[in-house]
């Protein structure tokens, strides 16, 4: 039963990811990425990372992707002139090389000890909060600085003349 759920949502994530890079218009790519993020949150639930699943939907699909879609619609984009000529041959080299990379990763992963990712541990908000505010206080505070810098940087870049 769990396997069926896993395979269904794994297929959804892979299909959505392929759709993201296959679409010509970037708005459809962004919408497809939202589907990917939502399916990914189901995989998080299967791994009992409950809090992250919620955060994934609220912050990623809800906030970051809204930012993307907002900008896409703001810019009123021209049609995508994809695939410049000098990149044409890259596809024929890149895709086989990528598949080879995938084969290497798959072979490596398959040969390590067979263990099941098993949900003993529940990533509840309490557990994550406790760890975040004891062991990871310094990174957490550094994060706030990072966000402040990103905020100022975004304003500086996007403003016409400061």
């Amino acid at each position: 039963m769990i396997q069926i759920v896993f395979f269904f949502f794994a297929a959804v994530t892979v299909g959505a990811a392929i759709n993201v890079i296959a679409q010509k218009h970037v708005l459809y790519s962004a919408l497809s990425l939202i589907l990917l993020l939502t399916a990914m949150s189901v995989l998080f639930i299967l791994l009992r990372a409950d809090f992250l699943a919620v955060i994934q939907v609220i912050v990623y699909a809800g906030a970051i992707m809204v930012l993307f879609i907002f900008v896409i619609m703001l810019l009123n984009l021209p049609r995508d002139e994809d695939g410049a000529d000098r990149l044409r041959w890259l596809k024929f080299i890149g895709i086989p090389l990528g598949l080879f990379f995938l084969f290497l990763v798959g072979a490596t992963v398959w040969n390590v000890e067979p263990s099941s990712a098993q949900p003993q541990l529940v990533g509840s908000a309490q557990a994550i909060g406790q760890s975040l505010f004891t062991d990871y206080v310094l990174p957490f505070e550094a994060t706030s600085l990072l966000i402040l810098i990103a905020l100022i940087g975004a304003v500086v870049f996007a403003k016409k003349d400061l």
Partner: protein
Amino acid sequence: MIPAAWYLILSAVLFLIGVLGFFLKRNIIALLLSVEIMLNAVNLTFVVFSAQHRQISGQIFVFFVLVVAAAEAAVGLALVIAMFRNRESLNVDRSNLLKW
């Protein structure tokens, strides 16, 4: 139950798709979306190892990756707006002033 290897292979597939998108697309917003795919693939790996080793640290790292992704999206999209204002195009091949 589901072996951890399945999750890892799924994560590798997603990461591969992200890399291919990053190298094959020329629209800068599509590149940012490809980066998001890659970040999500890495997040999945973190959560799988967190569940496998029964340590919460992996999920904390996902949290930080999320924050960095948000910062990257904000700054990246600001750059996109600035670039579109200057060139009327989002093609990364067009903005090659540094490449003389």
